[in-house]
């Protein structure tokens, strides 16, 4: 074939082109720009605050995954977890949604929700499946904040729970823990929020939260006490057992109430401070403003006497024992010493009536007068089974007089030995006496006596035999003779015996004679002149 010639090629013909769409291509980048800008803007706008929360450990937290939730709504994600600069803590940086902005304020609290059991309730069990998350409790402040210190344990009370907090002071923890319930009349009205040792180590301070509306029952006059476990007390009064609830037995508890007879007063202020008494009895005990302290020295053992034991006067409680110790007096004598508190207000009538009775000197004089009359302190057994003792004051008029040293403080009340101790000492004496008795010699003597008795008995036996054989027949004869005599006497004295008939006749005569004399006496009484003149009837007749 011949080489193609350019002339064989077709001729291009003019024709309409399509519309030039060249410039339309610029729509593409413009759209792309718009999309990109929109994406960027959206992510910027959707970006909420970034916060950092410091925890002790990052257990359960994962960068990029762990969520931050409030009321179970996702409000953010942990973006990164790093060690703090001093490598003691872990800092979790989280990005939150814009709607969380209002929640991140000065006193917002963060904690990690993991499964835990406190205060008798289980929390956060869902996190076993879904993984731990960070929860928050928004604060009430208006200032926003970006760096927080996370709590190691969830707060006991969330900030949106209505109610008030109060502060309690106690000597020791007493098996109360964070989360322990607070009771009012056995109704659970709140819980213990914190329990911490005081800075000086001399006590424990609790913070309790009482839910509304029960917080209005916390008045100035209310008393708080430790209602944990079971109160078992064995004292001079006997066995007593008290408990608040089954829960409080296991996890401890605090109860409060206004003691009967105490003025309730106005509602207590928030964060008001109260003392935590160790049990209901102590809390309800009336607090007396006036108290006298006295000292007692005893010669006997004070085992069985406890601090807090009652002091009574003839059965009426007037005070309590506050201290028991040993005292060494000048004469090289070691004695137990007991300090007691007496509340004059309990002797209420006395206290109110006497003017000036509040002054200590007056009371000292009064005490001297009592002691002069025989007031003594004595230890008595309150409970024979446990041997608990208590102190009783009473009059012992026969005790020798004692002069109180009014210069000593506290004043000393003289003591008398106690009833049971007397019994004890008497028994001891008897035992001594029995010990002293020469029992061996007595035994020997007894043996001799028995031997002698034996001999005597044998003699008596012989005598009796003789009696039987010799004396008896004679006696029989005598008896018969006596019987005969008696029969005769009987005959003489029987009803129809002549002796009796004679006697009777004689008596009759005597009676007639007596009658005649009586008549005469009567007549003479009426007519005494007849002694001289004779009988008038006879004259009249003559």
């Amino acid at each position, binding site marked *: 074939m011949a080489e193609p010639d*350019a*002339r064989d*090629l*077709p*001729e*291009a*013909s*003019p*024709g*309409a*082109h*399509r519309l*030039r769409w*060249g*410039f339309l*291509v*610029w729509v*593409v*980048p413009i*759209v*792309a*720009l718009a*999309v*990109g800008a929109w*994406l*960027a803007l959206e992510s910027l706008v959707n970006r909420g605050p970034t916060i950092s929360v410091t925890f002790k450990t990052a257990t359960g937290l*994962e960068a*990029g*995954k*762990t*969520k931050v939730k409030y009321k179970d709504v996702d409000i953010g994600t942990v973006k990164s977890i790093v060690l703090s600069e001093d490598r003691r803590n872990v800092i979790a940086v989280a990005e939150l949604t814009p709607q969380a902005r209002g929640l991140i304020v000065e006193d917002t609290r963060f904690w990690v929700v993991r499964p835990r059991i406190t205060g008798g309730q289980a929390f956060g069990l869902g996190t076993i499946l*879904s*993984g731990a998350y960070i929860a928050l409790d928004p604060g009430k402040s208006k200032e926003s904040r970006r760096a927080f210190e996370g709590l190691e344990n969830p707060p006991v009370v969330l900030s949106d729970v209505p109610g008030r907090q109060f502060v309690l002071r106690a000597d020791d923890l007493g098996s109360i823990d964070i989360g322990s319930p607070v009771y009012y009349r056995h109704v659970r009205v709140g819980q213990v929020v914190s329990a911490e040792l005081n800075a000086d180590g001399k006590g424990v301070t609790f913070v309790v939260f009482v839910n509304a509306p029960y917080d209005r029952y916390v008045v100035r006059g209310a008393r708080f006490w430790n209602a944990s476990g079971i109160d078992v007390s064995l004292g001079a009064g006997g066995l007593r057992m008290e408990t608040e609830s089954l829960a409080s037995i296991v996890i401890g508890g605090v109860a409060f109430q206004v003691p009967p007879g105490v003025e309730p007063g106005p509602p207590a202020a928030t964060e008001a401070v109260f003392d935590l008494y160790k049990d209901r009895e102590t809390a309800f005990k009336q607090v007396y403003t006036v108290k006298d302290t006295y000292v007692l020295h005893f010669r006997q053992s004070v085992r069985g006497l406890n601090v807090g034991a009652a002091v009574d006067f003839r059965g009426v409680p007037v005070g309590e024992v506050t201290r028991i110790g040993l005292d060494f007096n000048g004469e090289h004598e070691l004695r137990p010493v007991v300090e007691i508190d007496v509340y004059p207000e309990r002797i209420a009538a006395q206290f109110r009536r006497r003017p000036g009775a509040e002054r200590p000197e007056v009371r000292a004089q009064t005490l001297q007068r009592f002691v002069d009359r025989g007031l003594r302190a004595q230890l008595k057994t309150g409970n024979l089974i446990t041997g608990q003792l208590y102190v009783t004051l009473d009059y012992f008029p026969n005790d020798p007089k004692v002069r109180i040293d009014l210069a000593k403080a506290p004043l000393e009340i003289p003591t008398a030995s106690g009833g049971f101790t007397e019994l004890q000492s008497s028994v001891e004496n008897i035992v001594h006496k029995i010990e002293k008795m020469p029992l061996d010699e007595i035994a020997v003597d007894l043996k001799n006596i028995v031997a002698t008795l034996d001999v005597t008995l044998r003699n008596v036996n012989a005598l009796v035999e003789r009696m039987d054989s010799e004396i008896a027949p004679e006696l029989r004869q005598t008896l018969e003779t006596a019987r005969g005599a008696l029969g005769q006497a009987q005959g003489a004295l029987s009803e129809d015996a002549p002796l009796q008939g004679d006697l009777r006749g004689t008596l009759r005569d005597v009676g007639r004679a007596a009658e005649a004399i009586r008549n005469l006496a009567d007549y003479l009484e009426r007519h005494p002149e007849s002694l001289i003149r004779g009988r008038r009837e006879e004259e009249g007749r003559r």
Partner: protein
Amino acid sequence: MSAGAAAMGLLRCAVCGIPNRARAGARLRCGRCGSPLAARKPDSLARATALLAAAYVLYLPANLLPILETGEIGGARSPDTIMSGVLKLWSGGWWPLAIVILVASIVIPFAKLAVLTWLVASARRGSTARLRARTRLYRLVDVIGKWSMVDIYVGALLVGLVQFPPLAGVAPGPAAIAFGAVVVLTMLASRAFDPRLLWDAAGARRG
């Protein structure tokens, strides 16, 4: 006038391939098949520039936004960008796959963008340096451009296969769309670019 068919008064039809006897000018049709005739791709540089610009714009979200989200449905989800996905694969021991994705999703798109930009710029300038190399480069870019879609392919497979609700699942992220768009746009840009423009400059120099 540069060397080439146009200098000889011929214009090759892009559709049926026959050279047409033509005078320079616009709006000509092929004598045989009737399709529009043009010496060079119309608005080649403008189109290439526009498409490259769009690709650049979408390149940022493609790499910054997560391309895949793995994790429990309704629970903690772990979003991954392309880079973080590569790193996870590498640290997980899947280093061959990591290398493939690294090359296909990060190296190649970036290289395409860079090369095309350079080619367009050099064509505008009329530079004559290394023409053969540049042409070869253009051909390389054109051919392998579509292989960047491997990443999208892997993502689609994962989303389709790994679904164990409620325990685990894979979901595509917003970067998937952006990345797909970037690949498509660069492919379109390389199609729009007319490499004969490079040689035009050389011809102009000589001629």
